[in-house]
């Protein structure tokens, strides 16, 4: 019970969850005789869930990265397994984890230099509409046009308003040199999705 509660907290709160939220989950488990809805409710409503040190503390798994990226650009997946192959290339072949313990939750399992570069490449390809298995509809997210306006929309629609000042500056500088607004938009979206803010849940 405690083990599973801890795993749920690792999944939703932090790779190293505070004891408090695990205790809360265990208490809810006991109260409800193991109703997982009650256990999850206890985790989501606990003080640790929204504590500053736990918000955006977790790095996306490759699956979460690909799915969130595809959603962020309103991508339409085709019926082929090609998008799932992208997830596999990023290190998480679906349903093929070798050991019987499931894919790990900890960031150390997913973040390494090669994997990060792969995510950046996938992001650039996705934004350019060149990622296999999906059709991208950037027009529905951000219209190509003024640089500052595009950066603002990318921040809101893709990064949920978490874009750092540094990222804004880099985007501004990179986009300034590009005359074609469609290309500039693809670059902004690619850098945003491949950038550090988007790697966190």
């Amino acid at each position, binding site marked *: 019970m405690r083990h599973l509660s801890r795993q749920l907290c690792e999944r939703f709160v932090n790779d190293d969850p505070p004891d408090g939220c695990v205790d809360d989950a265990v208490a809810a488990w006991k109260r409800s005789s193991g109703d997982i809805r009650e256990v999850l409710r206890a985790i989501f409503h606990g003080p640790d869930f929204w504590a500053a040190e736990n918000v955006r503390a977790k790095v996306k798994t490759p699956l979460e990265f690909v799915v969130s990226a595809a959603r962020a650009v309103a991508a339409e997946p085709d019926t082929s397994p090609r998008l799932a192959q992208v997830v596999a290339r990023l290190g998480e072949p679906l349903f093929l984890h070798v050991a019987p313990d499931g894919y790990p939750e900890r960031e150390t399992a997913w973040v*390494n*230099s090669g*994997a990060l*570069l792969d995510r950046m490449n996938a992001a650039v390809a996705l934004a350019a509409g060149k990622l296999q298995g999906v059709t991208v509809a950037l027009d529905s997210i951000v219209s190509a046009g003024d640089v500052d306006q595009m950066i603002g929309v990318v921040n809101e629609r893709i990064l949920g308003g978490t874009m750092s000042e*540094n990222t804004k500056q880099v985007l501004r500088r990179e986009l300034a040199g590009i005359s074609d607004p469609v290309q500039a938009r693809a670059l902004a979206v690619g850098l945003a999705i491949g950038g*550090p803010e988007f790697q966190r849940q």
Partner: protein
Amino acid sequence: MTISRRVFVKSGGLALFSFGLDPLFLARAAFAVRPSARPPDRRILVCLFQRGAVDGLNMIVPHGDPIYYQERPRIAVPEQDVLDLDGYFGLHPRLAALKPLWDAKTLAAIHAIGSPDATRSHFDAQDYMESGTPGVKATPDGWLNRYCQHDREHQDTPFRAVAFGPQLPRILAGTAPSLAIDDLRAFGIRAPRPAARDRLTRAFEELYAGSATGLLSTSSREAFEAVQMLKRLDPGQYRPANGADYPRGRLGKALLEIAQLIKADVGLQVAFADVTGWDTHVNQGATEGQLAGRLGELGQALAAFTRDLGEWMRDVVVLTMSEFGRTVRENGSSGTDHGHATAMLVLGGPVNGGRVLGKWPGLNPAQRFEGRDVAVTTDFRDLFAELLARHLGARDLSAVFPGFSPDPARFPGALSA
């Protein structure tokens, strides 16, 4: 805030000058005078993991023991096909490419080596062999990574510890920087034109340098340092030396890329690659067949690697490892099932070669582990510890193998004194 490359590179502790010819030349000159005084930071350990549990008995064949032939009527390697090594043991014929290395005393085998833990689960046994803590599941990092954490005499470069494959293996997981490279030529940001690639690379580099935190920050820094070094290396242009002919497939490619990094002198100290396909439960084969094919590729790849590296091999040790061995007796499907001890190979200039090391327990049922498998007489940590201590110069082995006291008296003697 913009971070210039100079600051970036400096903060990463990257020694770009190691690309130049001078350090290599100086090192070689030093070796010529005092061959025993090789600086430890030029020594390299290459680890190959034979995942799936290689049948040590058909790799290093105890052809001098009639029990071997009694227990394996269909899959024993016939006496006349075995390449005899010492009158009792012999090489599988498809490892013929390794025989000259054996004769040159740069190849040794350690037989009856394995884990003190009795598990016959691939998952658990691989986990223990990589964590270096048999029986302990909770160990968060791998022993190669712990070695890198604790041996601070070797400089951390982006290429100090590299795993060749899509994911960082357990053995290299941990806080010391380590790289996973699936394809050296494709490592980096991809773009149709070099100018666009450089521009994108710089933009991402600045995004991460400015806003990433924690592991995202350190990993991205390692990534971009490695990308810069590789750019100078131009891996697409690499041609193996001395007519070395690597076999097609993942292993040949991994060893070719390891050789390339060694020659580029980028600070590689620990390299790792997987070799799969050893779980031969069904139709294992004997002189020919399934296992023979895998061994053929292994032998060819190691021979090509040695040939390609030439002189460089004096500082290189290659170690093969596998999670356990296989049953002495063949099963009903002309294969072998999960066993206990297996054989490992060590190859390279520093190796005390031309001999089968380790205490041979014998194949009598009474001498076997649980009546069925080759018993373990050498704890794998004794071999790993010997290589770390005597080859790489590790000092604090208790930190690398917690709960284990490495004792030089138990080292199998894989390296020349």
